[in-house]
């Protein structure tokens, strides 16, 4: 028994002395051959970490008036074609179910569309400078993780008598039935990409100023988020910005939304531009 306790103490002490990630003043994507598969992947252990202080969105109404999430910790890895980010922030209140008055947790990575010495405005770009945004949402993650596309999946006690597209005359799962269901979901019928159903928890967007966010060309993005009592750890991958990889550097910015704080759209915590480089592992 005494031996076991002593062993536990040794393990705890050693664990406490374990070195954390290298802290860096800019976002560094370390070159690697094997990109991580999830935010919990051990490949992240050797990636340097940048602690980005989050600021209020204070440019346009509605503004973020209350400071909520204080910081986002960012690590990055790249294989030369893709770059993968791991964002983590404190949020003990999981918000992954949308609803009236219910916002969801989310985060985003923003990079200028072109490498330039003069980056566009850090808050969503400007008329002269387009930004690319890769956006991840907790409700999309829940959908990808298996949550169904029905009201009962969001509200288990909901009772629905009948939907017109469930009429007996329509064969279940048939094209005719699917087409009719789409007509009863206006945003889906119009092809609004954010309207689901989701196949991945991220979307590629572009913007050239506040209020201009719109679907952008594919960046081969992917994402994966895990929530614990400590908060979120989210992995977002996308194409490495064109021209980046050698001695060049660009800028990068991040945003975090806490659903429990009613954050959505312009109501967000965000960073300014942070230098972003790709570096070979020592």
């Amino acid at each position, binding site marked *: 028994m005494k031996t076991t306790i002593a062993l536990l103490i040794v393990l705890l002490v050693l664990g406490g002395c374990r070195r954390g990630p290298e802290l860096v003043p800019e976002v560094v994507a370390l070159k690697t051959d094997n990109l991580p598969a999830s935010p919990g992947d051990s490949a992240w252990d050797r990636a340097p970490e940048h602690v980005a202080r989050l600021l209020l969105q204070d440019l346009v*109404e509605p503004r973020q008036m209350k400071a909520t999430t204080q910081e986002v910790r960012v690590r990055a890895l790249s294989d030369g074609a893709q770059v993968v980010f791991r964002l983590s922030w404190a949020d003990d209140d999981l918000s992954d179910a*949308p609803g*009236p008055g219910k916002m969801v947790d989310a985060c985003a990575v923003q990079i200028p569309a072109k490498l330039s010495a003069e980056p566009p405005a850090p808050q969503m770009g400007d008329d002269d400078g387009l930004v690319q945004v890769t956006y991840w949402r907790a409700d999309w993650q829940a959908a990808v993780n298996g949550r169904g596309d029905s009201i009962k999946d969001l509200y288990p006690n909901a009772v629905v008598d009948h*939907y*017109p597209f469930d009429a007996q005359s329509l064969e279940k799962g048939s094209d005719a039935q699917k087409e009719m269901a789409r007509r009863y*979901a206006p945003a889906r019928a119009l092809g609004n990409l954010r309207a689901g159903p989701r196949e991945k928890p991220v979307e590629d967007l572009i913007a050239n100023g506040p209020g201009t966010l719109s679907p952008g060309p594919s960046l081969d993005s992917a994402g994966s988020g895990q929530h614990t009592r400590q908060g979120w750890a989210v992995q977002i991958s996308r194409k490495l910005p064109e021209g980046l990889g050698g001695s060049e550097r660009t800028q990068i910015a991040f945003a975090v939304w806490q659903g429990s704080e009613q954050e959505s759209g312009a109501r967000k915590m965000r960073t300014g531009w942070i230098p972003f480089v790709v570096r070979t592992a020592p």
Partner: protein
Amino acid sequence: MARVYNWQLGREMSYWYPESRPKRQFAAVFDTNKCIACQTCTLACKTTWTSGKGQEYMLWNNVETKPYGSYPLAYDLKLLEMLNSQQWEGEKYTGQTVFESAPAGERVLGWRPEQQDYAYPNVGEDDCANQVDTGALMKLPHMSWFFYLARICNHCSYPACLSSCPRGSIYKRQEDGIVLVDQNRCRGYQECVKGCPYKKVFFNPMTGTSEKCIACYPKIEQGIQPQCFVNCIGKIRLAGYISRPEQARADNPIDYLVHIKKVALPLFPQYGLEPNIYYIPPIHVPDNFNRQLFGPRATEAVKTYRNAFNDRDLAGLLCLFGSTERMVTRFTRQGDVITGIEDSGAAAVRIPMNEPVHIRPAQDPRNQLVRINCP
């Protein structure tokens, strides 16, 4: 913010965008005195537009019993409380609108209902304003009252939903002033839900976008009144177009009721949105309650309505309500016949103001029988 003119307030006010009036403005008059809360309008709308996934709780049209009914819960009381003093000097509003009282960092003074607020669509249904004492029903006038308030989107001239949206996903159609959410552009921030004082924008959790009453624009484009109008059992509704006060035409039914007779009034004009659904106030409700809902003209409107029997044009026009599914943009009266005329100039309907009365004698001379009225 820009300075715009709001004729319902009798003054200029601040608004997020400069004044830009549509070519014509869809408008309607609802006669609260005729509503029986049968909810046929609610069902007509529901089955037409909101029977999809995520729309289960949406009521683009609802009928609530006032004073206690509301959908979502206390949508009116919460904002009235936030807006503080709402003073009028004569017909000029000297209080602040939801735009003028927007807190720092906000575009509009508003609040966002929680899920539970949508759980009681029939709260307060048929509840009287006061306790009914024993024997009170035998006395006149009844001191207890309630009335039914049918509500749809007001397709406001200064929509708070539109000004709340930070990405311009809501627009007002130039051709008819109908306010729509662009379902392709909306990203479901729910700012419009928060901003609309009438809470007539709803968030769809399945598509992640916000949706609202579209005034059945595919029907209006064909000169037909919306579903909730043509299905109204009580014939309380009349759809048309409203002009600005200085351009009011006496032969335009909506202009006549709103601008000329001033018998139909906007709902909560003090919010400052210049809503375009106008209500003939209930005639049996305390004056101060009517004035809070419909503004300072409510007292006079009740008097005018009570006197409609002696006003042939007004009485005739009230007969046009619910008499045709076509949009009537002009009316004329010849003797006791009122004619509703469409945009094309064609008569949509002719209504006798007094229906012929046949008196059947109690005695049937041929069969030598006394008729009785019961089967």
